[in-house]
């Protein structure tokens, strides 16, 4: 039977799957970049190092994001929804998105399609930031309710 608990478990599984994909991308980055350049952009030969900087640099906020996302889901599984710790997780997720966005934006000087990733990551960061503000307010209200006797 499908339940809230199953949904959280599915989300956790998805986070683990994305972490595995990220790990594979980091391991096979040289092959992936080589394949991309061979397949479609032979004119970009010689810029492999830039691609590596973008991929490995962007992996750092991605790791932080996935770690925070997993922590957030662990909190939800433990029935701890409106807690300050979750606000911290959301703040880290938001800044990770903005960090990834900046890295991708800087990378547009050699490969313009990074702009699409930068805009998507920046927009996602904005959404999570608004969500963080909502949860932060909810935590304050919850705290007030908890301290009402």
């Amino acid at each position, binding site marked *: 039977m499908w339940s809230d608990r199953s949904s959280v478990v599915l989300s956790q599984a998805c986070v683990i799957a994305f972490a595995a994909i990220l790990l594979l991308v980091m391991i096979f980055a040289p092959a992936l970049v080589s394949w991309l350049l061979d397949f479609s952009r032979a004119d970009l030969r010689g810029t492999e190092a830039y691609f590596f900087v973008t991929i490995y640099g962007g992996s750092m906020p991605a790791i932080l994001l996935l770690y925070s996302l997993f922590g957030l889901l662990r909190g939800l599984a433990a029935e701890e929804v409106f807690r300050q710790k979750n606000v911290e997780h959301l703040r880290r997720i938001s800044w990770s998105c903005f960090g990834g966005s900046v890295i991708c934006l800087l990378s547009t000087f050699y490969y313009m399609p990074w702009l699409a990733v930068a805009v998507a990551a920046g927009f996602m960061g904005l959404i999570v930031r608004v969500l963080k503000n909502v949860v932060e307010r909810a935590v304050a209200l919850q705290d007030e309710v908890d*301290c009402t*006797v």
Partner: protein
Amino acid sequence: MSIVINLDVMMARRKISSGELAERIGLSPANLSILKTGKAKAIRFSTLEAICRALECQPGDILEFRS
């Protein structure tokens, strides 16, 4: 906060323990402790009424404003 809870004073005057008061007013000892230590952010009228009834006092005997 400038609102001070003088519950301890009234409890001492009426010679009533925390456990006994909590039981009389139907509040958990943990919540009564929050109230006594000034950590409470709000108090329900029903709680205040129960305390006043149990301690035979007025709300002003328990709550005090200090600027």
